[in-house]
């Protein structure tokens, strides 16, 4: 495994972790809204 490959993998990895965090955040927010909390945020 060349160091270059790690660098190449880093960009999509960071993008994916960002997307994963965002989807999780939306999921939690929707769960709250479905439970009747945070109605103002809709």
């Amino acid at each position, binding site marked *: 495994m060349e160091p270059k490959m*790690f660098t190449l*993998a880093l960009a999509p*990895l960071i993008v*994916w972790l960002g997307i*994963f965090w965002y*989807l999780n955040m939306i*999921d939690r927010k929707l769960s709250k809204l479905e439970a009747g909390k945070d*109605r103002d945020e809709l």
Partner: protein
Amino acid sequence: MAVGNAPNSQLNNVNSSIPGLWWKILTGIGMTLTILAVYLVVGPVLNKVGQPFYTLGGHGAKVIFFHVPCAWLGSQCYIIGACYAVSYLRARARGERFAMVEADLKNAVAMELGLLFSVLATITGMVFAKNEWGAYWNWDPRQTSILIIMFLFAAYVALRGIVADPDLRARQGAVYTLVAVVPGIFLYFILPRIVGDTMHAEPNKALIGRQISGNYMYTMYGLTLPSFIMLFVWMFQLRLRQMKLELRKSA
């Protein structure tokens, strides 16, 4: 039969999320492993004479591992959208209002995600094209096809955005989806095959013809594609839940 108001009491009782946290964690692990496998395990992409593709010793072309699932999911969105459009029209004929709303929202989500994944397929394709063919855009038949496909998906989103009446919006959306699925399937599956000489021929051959060293077949079909499908399911149900909440709020 107004789509927008009558079944909201029933929507309150429906949770569109798939239960459990395990499959979301699995999606996260699957996508992370996909990225790591593509760049750290799978070997360089080779051309027809066995030489690495141009950039980074054949590793630059590995963006096709993300391009192919996006393009495939975009094509599936047409089929999923069309199934829900038929489902909507059948429910409408039977006067089942709850089923109508459910089918209409799922149809809308499928078409929206179709737009998203076709845009992602185009962007990843453009990165590949710049690396390997020297320009972001080459008017290759497949590139032209996906451009028209994007417009077809975008037209659905625009149509849905400008019609205020929920019933008319749902009916027009369903009919549009069924009309758009015909050129969609033609552009995805038929046109690139009847136009013989495309720039996609070589990367397609590399992907299908075992010109990538290492266990790329396991990576593509055992890891990348399932991970993207799980991601698609997650995004689909998130958007559906959001649309249902908006519908409940507007009631």
